[in-house]
């Protein structure tokens, strides 16, 4: 058997629907059609009445999920693309994120954001919004990079009492495969050493984990061992695991697919330099997308986003300092 990242997301939802009668799914085309990416394929048939097509109304979709959560339900909402969550932004950051703090009533909703770039998708079907949501108190922001995490973290996300922004990466949907689904998993909030090393730490997440692993492999030929830390969750962010890695390597490169200003890389560097300044043998470095909208043409897109070779080039530069 072989299962893709996308199938893992479907399976997690199927399991949650089967195990917990409070769970339901709401979003555009998620019903009989099974969703734009087929992440809810057959679920409407398997769980009648619990996988519900919405109008094109992201503000209402999120708002309704919040109301349902107040009444004890466990809604999962699917945005057709992360980019469209800007329309539901107010409900996410002002209603869902503040509910518990203000009223003491928690808000267990999961907002699934098909995120990140793929070739030819252009400025409005490629965005990575994790840093935007992580800025707000009251939200948990997850960025699974593996099939196993896509499955186990989504299950855990549904179980969490608080609102979760689940940034699943479209570039991994079909590419990434695993032999089977995990029975156990690391808890949310713990980062993972995706590849151990001793010369330099790359801290990354989402699709960039794979670009970074490829870069590490490439550089291994030069005799350098790069450690790759997959954050898994960017809020909360597992500073301890990152610090422990930097303590081993003395060098930090942060790689993110999103824009640089105030992104995950900036946040990681701020934490490491504040809490582990003495561990660094060289300045921390970051590699992000270029600071423009995500271009449509694959030739431009391939330069706009960090690729394995760009990561390798940055790592080499940092190793030489």
């Amino acid at each position: 058997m072989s299962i893709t990242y996308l199938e893992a997301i479907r399976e997690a939802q199927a399991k949650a629907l089967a195990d917990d009668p409070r769970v339901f799914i709401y979003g555009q085309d998620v019903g009989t059609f099974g969703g734009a990416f087929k992440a809810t394929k057959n679920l409407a048939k398997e769980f009648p009445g619990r996988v519900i097509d919405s109008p094109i109304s992201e503000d209402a979709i999120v708002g309704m999920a919040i109301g349902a959560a107040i009444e004890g339900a466990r809604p999962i909402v699917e945005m057709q693309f992360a980019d469209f969550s800007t329309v539901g932004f107010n409900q996410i950051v002002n209603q869902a994120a503040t509910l518990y703090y203000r009223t003491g009533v928690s808000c267990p909703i999961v907002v699934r954001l098909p995120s990140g770039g793929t070739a030819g998708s252009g400025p409005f079907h490629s965005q990575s919004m994790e840093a935007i949501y992580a800025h707000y108190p009251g939200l948990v922001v997850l960025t699974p990079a593996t099939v196993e995490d896509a499955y186990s973290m989504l299950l855990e996300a549904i179980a969490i009492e608080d609102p979760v922004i689940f940034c699943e990466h479209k570039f991994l949907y079909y590419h990434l495969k695993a032999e089977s689904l995990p029975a156990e998993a690391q808890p949310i909030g713990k980062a993972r050493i995706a590849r151990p090393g001793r010369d330099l730490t790359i801290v990354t997440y989402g699709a960039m984990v794979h670009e970074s692993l490829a870069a590490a492999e490439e550089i291994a030929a030069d005799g350098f061992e790069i450690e790759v830390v997959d954050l898994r969750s960017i809020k909360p962010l597992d500073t301890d695991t990152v610090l422990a890695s930097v303590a081993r390597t003395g060098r930090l490169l942060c790689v993110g697919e999103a824009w640089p200003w105030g992104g995950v890389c900036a946040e990681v560097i701020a934490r490491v330099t504040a809490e582990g300044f003495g561990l660094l043998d060289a300045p921390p470095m970051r590699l992000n997308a270029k600071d423009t909208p995500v271009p449509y043409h694959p030739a431009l897109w391939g330069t706009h986003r960090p690729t394995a070779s760009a990561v390798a080039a940055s790592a080499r530069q940092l190793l030489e300092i």
Partner: protein
Amino acid sequence: MSEVVKSRPGAERDQGREIVKAYRTMLAARVLEEKLAALYRGGKIKGGVFLGRGQEALSVAVGQNLRPGDIFAPLIRDQAGRMAFGDTILDTLRTYLGSSLGSMRGRDGNIHRGRPREGYYAMISHLGAMIPVVTGGLLARRLQGQSGVVGATCIGDGGTSTGAFHEGLNAAAVEKLPLVVVVANNQYAYSTPNSRQFACADLLDKAIGYGVTGHKVDGTSLADCLRVIGVAITAARAGGGPQLIVGDLLRLVGHGEHDDASYVDPTLRRKPVGQDCIELAGAYIIQQGWASAEQLANWREELETEVDATAGRVMREPEPDPADEDWSALSTRELEDHFA
């Protein structure tokens, strides 16, 4: 529809009881709000104070027609509706004055209060935003197999211009959920008159575009408000889908207590829409012989005493202490992020 009510034996007596009950709640809201205004002028309230003077009849009719187990998401000017739905003088004062014993514990204030687990949702400031939230609450109730539940929420003339109003009401209509949206058409959104807010002849004209039932009500008449909103809530409860009610009235006070409402067209105040619903209701009650002018005056006096005493008590209550706070926005403490 009033025939329907009157055709039952004893209906008139019931109606009298209902009106008097509503009147006393309106009066409580009015007296409490007068106190809030005084406290504001005295510098006792740090944030803004936003009152519902002139809107008590419409508001109370919503709260009083709801049942325990229903959902209610009131808006800015719903002190009367809130109290009819179970909110208290005590918690109102605690929230405005920021007592740590209030339902919002000083974390949020004034009109931003509620007890969501009891069906009494706490509004956020963003207008329109509560409509989809109530809709979702009703969807969950349906999924849980509950029927006969109603969710009501209020909005202003200005709030109808928000995308949230549109998306929420439309989604409720598609699901045919028992949502009751009450528009308090008080002629202004802050300083903005209706002529700068929408171009339809009547806000009720919006109902057909959502495929929902529309109801018009004279917001200055308590009897009309109780009757029409009663009909709408009954229809929603019976499976008739969303109901849109437009009540015409005038805000008899500034947008907030900082505002002198000098922009209000003075001719409006002299028109029927500009009448004070409490005065009208009081006169009606006296005229119908359900209570005397002395009784009305007594009720007010009792309420003033209660409100004053409660305010005094609340002002002696502890403020929230920052040191006692755990400063977490998540209920799952293990998932808190830590910043050096």
